[in-house]
């Protein structure tokens, strides 16, 4: 232990118990020592558990504002985010009854249920990737929006569509010209639901939702409940 080997400093480093020079020297060592990086990562996890054994005074009221303002002030130094336009939808004309090939229909929805959330973390990431950089077009017919990322991946946000009755399901559609593609099934229900569409949305295109029999269909058979027209930026 006291042989001066830098390997043994991983615990002290994780506890922030090295002084400035020691820390600097150890970080130089870390850069070239995979084993030490693993040790440190594991010890950091243990050390940060210690943070849970502190009393929790009320948060100072202005601290959040201070932090957000300071972060905002720094933003010009960050990579500027591209601005794109989202144009509210025109009403969707009747869906052309064009047969579409149904390929692997699936969809997800996010609920606030913790278990559910954990089980779909991976899919959730895809939803987040879309939501964090997308053009948003509000839907008509019912409250919601379509978010389309530059990758053409899209997420439908549906607010409080009544839960589909037993034997029924909501089905999303991506309509490009006369080409109608099924883009996912979801059950609806109270609150906000996110549906990662299974088809890309390449503007100009329309996204629509109908209520169909359980299991979904390959072309819409009922009236459109919710729709949005995604226009090129």
């Amino acid at each position, binding site marked *: *232990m*006291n042989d001066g080997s830098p390997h*043994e400093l991983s*615990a*002290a480093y*994780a*506890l*922030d*118990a090295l*002084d400035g020079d020691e820390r600097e020297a150890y970080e130089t060592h870390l850069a070239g020592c995979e084993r030490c*990086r693993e040790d440190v*990562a*594991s*010890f*950091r*996890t*243990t*050390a*940060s*558990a*210690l*943070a*849970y*054994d*502190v*009393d*929790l*005074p*009320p*948060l*100072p009221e202005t*601290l959040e504002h*201070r*932090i*957000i303002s300071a972060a905002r002030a*720094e*933003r010009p130094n*960050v*990579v500027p*985010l591209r*601005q794109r*336009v*989202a*144009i*509210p939808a*025109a009403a969707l004309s009747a869906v052309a009854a064009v047969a579409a090939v149904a390929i692997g229909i699936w969809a997800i929805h*996010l609920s*606030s249920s*913790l278990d559910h*959330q*954990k089980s779909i*973390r991976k899919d*959730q*990431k895809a939803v*987040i990737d879309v*939501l*964090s950089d997308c*053009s*948003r077009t509000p839907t008509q017919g019912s409250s919601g929006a379509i978010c389309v990322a530059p990758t053409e991946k899209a997420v439908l946000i549906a607010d409080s569509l009544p839960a589909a009755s037993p034997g029924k399901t909501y089905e999303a559609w991506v309509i490009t010209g006369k080409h109608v593609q099924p883009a996912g099934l979801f059950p609806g229900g109270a609150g*906000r639901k996110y549906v990662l569409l299974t088809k890309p949305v390449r503007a100009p295109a329309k996204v629509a939702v109908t209520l169909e029999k359980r299991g979904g269909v390959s072309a819409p058979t009922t009236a459109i409940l919710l729709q949005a027209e995604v226009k090129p930026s």
Partner: protein
Amino acid sequence: MISLRGRRTERSQATARELAHLSDEAVVALVARSDEHALAELYHRFGRLAYGLAFRILRDDALAQDAVQEAFLGAWRAAGRFTAERAKPSTWLLTLVHRRAVDLVRREERRRTEPLQPEMEPAGGEAPDAAELATQRQTIREALRRLPAEQREAIELAYYGGYTQSELAERLGEPLGTIKSRMFTGLARLREELGEDARVRVGPA
């Protein structure tokens, strides 16, 4: 039929309502994209713990606020380099807070003679995750209690007191090697006590 309601530019920052559903990792991913709502969400999740930790070390409201602010700004700048494989977001953030607080306490030399004596009453349980925090607190407390006294002392003085290993050697009148050994063995044992799933157990889900 409304054909055009004017060209509306909309930077799609996720709203607070959307963010509440997300995993910590997803929120950090949004922070990496300079989404300030996501930064606020991160603060809502961990601000209280961060401030509690900084206050425990610094014993001063203004300094604790500075430490927390610097840590969150550090997170704002570095979120793009956060890798979920290495650490949970809670570990990452608490590490930032701890380091800021320790650096400040050393700079300010504000440490009191007895840094381990908690001064504040635990705040009321109005936070929605209070029960979970209490469970985690209980877990770490029990794990600490099972450590040999001298290992626990070295770890607590280092983590909550902000002492360096050399300062500890001087304070406790032990050779530096002994202090290093206590910290290493103690932390390794604590890791064992907290179990293989310590990664899962620390941090609000």
